[in-house]
């Protein structure tokens, strides 16, 4: 058989057995947990008197609730401390490795998996977090799951899943300067819709994806879920394999050479068959900015906001709702929209390459008066690398705050939140109503470079004017 996609091969290799109704029992190679969606799963396990089946295949960290001002224990917020203590106790009880703040490996779960080499090609991965699709960038098939499923993986190292179809998305042409991976995935979601991926796994391919670094691919795969897809991946190539060489949990020496053989074998065949194919032309893309209340509602920074009357069916009502919430008007340009807060970070764009791009822009000026600007590294390792490169000094000199690693302002489970109707230029992944902590707060998603540009000018700015 030489017409199979990576998805087909991974699915077949991990199949334990067929269940009824078109579901398959799938073995999960790597299980990542964090403090928000696992405590109830451990409680259920205790109630059922079940052990963790493969404790060495689960790894934990703390990211959602951790404050970014200071990680000192006990955490200032008693509820956050309680969640952290609960996770520590569960990990100790079951023999699960916990990358806590003292370990030097703490960070956002989707940042540390790849950087530690836990995430590997050909694996199945699960985590109680929808952005688990991130790990697909290294050629893994990675599912976001709920708490009951976290319990299932702890108890059985398996999930019961219906097999999705596979859509290959070819990104062709070449990205122009100032256009990033974030702009590519926002364009894909704009084109295919926020529910266009329901029932599908997305395989990202084509010259633009091949030319991307692994961190850019992580950004693309991260937002697969925003397009409704069950998972997203890039078939692994030499760049992915070399990324893993020497990482703490990657195979070493001769084992690495043997791994290479298997990883190559698991890659999509050149003539693999797909259920659907889509082409996105990258040459036409400008830096993207969302203007609404879901990530599909985005335009190029040089465009005007769409008129509901010209939108197809369902979307007209959603646009009206978006404009009412955002206080923006159809027909107006998005460029020039004033902002109150700028946030660079998250599992989408909190890696070292993201911070470098933001710093490149930050060197061009100072944060505008009245704008609060935060830089939050995705992990302790990212923070160490940034420090080695002198990036915190660059940011501080320009008036940005340099924080400690965590999910921060992406989702408002820690002290970093919008206040009132503040509007935030954000490198995160969701512009949902209330997402950043204020029920009426507003989010404009964009690339880290665009966030930095907006911070300097105090309004949405085409980063290509600055660098």
């Amino acid at each position, binding site marked *: 058989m030489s017409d199979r996609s990576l998805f087909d091969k991974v699915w077949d290799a991990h199949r334990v057995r067929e269940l009824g109704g078109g579901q398959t029992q799938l073995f999960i190679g790597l299980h990542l947990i964090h403090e928000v*969606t696992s405590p109830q799963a451990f409680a259920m396990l205790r109630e059922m008197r079940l052990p963790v089946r493969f404790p060495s295949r689960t790894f934990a960290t703390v990211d959602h609730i951790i404050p970014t001002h200071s990680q000192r224990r006990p955490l200032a917020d008693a509820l956050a401390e309680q969640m952290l203590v609960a996770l520590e106790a569960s990990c100790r009880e079951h023999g699960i490795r916990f990358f806590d703040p003292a370990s030097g490996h703490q960070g956002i779960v989707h940042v540390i998996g790849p950087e530690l080499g836990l995430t590997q090609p050909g694996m199945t991965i699960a985590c109680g977090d929808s952005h688990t699709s991130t790990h697909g960038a290294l050629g893994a098939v990675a599912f976001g799951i709920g708490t009951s499923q976290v319990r299932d993986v702890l108890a059985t190292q398996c999930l*019961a899943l219906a097999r999705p179809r596979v859509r290959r998305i070819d990104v062709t042409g070449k990205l122009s300067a100032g256009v990033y991976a974030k702009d590519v995935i926002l364009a894909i979601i704009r084109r295919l819709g926020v529910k266009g991926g329901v029932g599908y796994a997305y395989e990202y391919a084509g010259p633009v994806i091949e030319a991307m670094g692994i961190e850019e691919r992580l950004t693309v795969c991260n937002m697969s879920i925003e397009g409704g897809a069950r998972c997203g991946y890039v078939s692994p190539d030499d760049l992915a394999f070399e990324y893993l060489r020497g990482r703490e949990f990657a195979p070493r020496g001769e084992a690495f050479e043997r791994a290479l053989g298997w990883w190559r074998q698991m890659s999509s065949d050149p003539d693999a068959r797909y259920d659907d194919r889509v082409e996105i032309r990258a040459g036409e893309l400008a830096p993207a900015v969302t203007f609404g209340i879901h990530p599909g509602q985005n335009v190029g920074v040089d465009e005007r906001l769409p008129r509901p009357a010209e939108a197809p069916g369902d979307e007209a009502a959603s646009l009206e709702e978006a404009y009412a919430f955002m206080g923006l008007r159809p027909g107006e340009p998005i460029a020039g929209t004033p902002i109150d807060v700028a946030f660079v970070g998250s599992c989408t764009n909190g890696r070292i390459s993201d911070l470098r791009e933001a710093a490149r822009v930050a060197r061009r000026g100072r944060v505008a008066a009245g704008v609060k600007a935060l830089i939050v590294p995705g992990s302790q390792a990212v923070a160490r690398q940034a420090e080695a490169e002198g990036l915190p000094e660059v940011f501080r000199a320009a008036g940005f705050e340099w924080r400690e690693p965590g999910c921060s302002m992406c989702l408002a489970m820690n002290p970093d939140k919008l206040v009132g109707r503040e509007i935030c230029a954000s490198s995160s992944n969701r512009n949902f109503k209330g997402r950043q902590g204020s029920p009426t707060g507003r989010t404009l998603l964009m690339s880290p470079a665009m966030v930095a540009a907006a911070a300097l000018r105090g309004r949405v700015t085409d980063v290509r004017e600055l660098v």
Partner: protein
Amino acid sequence: MSERRVERVRGRGCAIRGHNIDTDRIIPARYLRCVSFDGLGEHAFADDRQQAKGDHPLDQARFDGAAILIVDHNFGSGSSREHAPQALMRRGFRAFVGGSFAEIFAGNCLALGLACATLGDAERARLQDRVELRPSEELELDVEARTLASGLGVLRLEIAEHVREHLLAGTWDATAVLLDAGPAIEETASRLPYARGFAA
């Protein structure tokens, strides 16, 4: 498992309109700062309700005690938080009828024994109108027949085959089903080169 079988859901309906209602709206993140699901019910749709100033369907007395929630497209999108269906379940909802559902949300519902069924746009709009006009009318969702009986007559629903089978058999709580595979789990692991550390 017989006591866990879900063959039908009977009860009054409630309509929440709007596409792409994400799980951050169903249960805002600040209510996830907890180590148990207890008490989540009262916070369902907290921000939407506050902004609707008492006019949100969940605050209207006529929908008190409703068991079937009628929604639109892509309901439950976004975050994987099981807290979302947990909150709705703790408010008394046992089934969802919508245009379409986000996949993680639908999977979380099944894990709690809650049915997600889809219905075409025109019929769904009629059903929402009906529920708003006659909120005290009893609806009956029949899982086996894939139908919804209401004052509008009997509507045909779509329910994924695995959802239907697990609800009818009472096996929606997957742990026991997965454990039944026994040593086949370890056998599968032993065939995976990475699970053997890529040993020669």
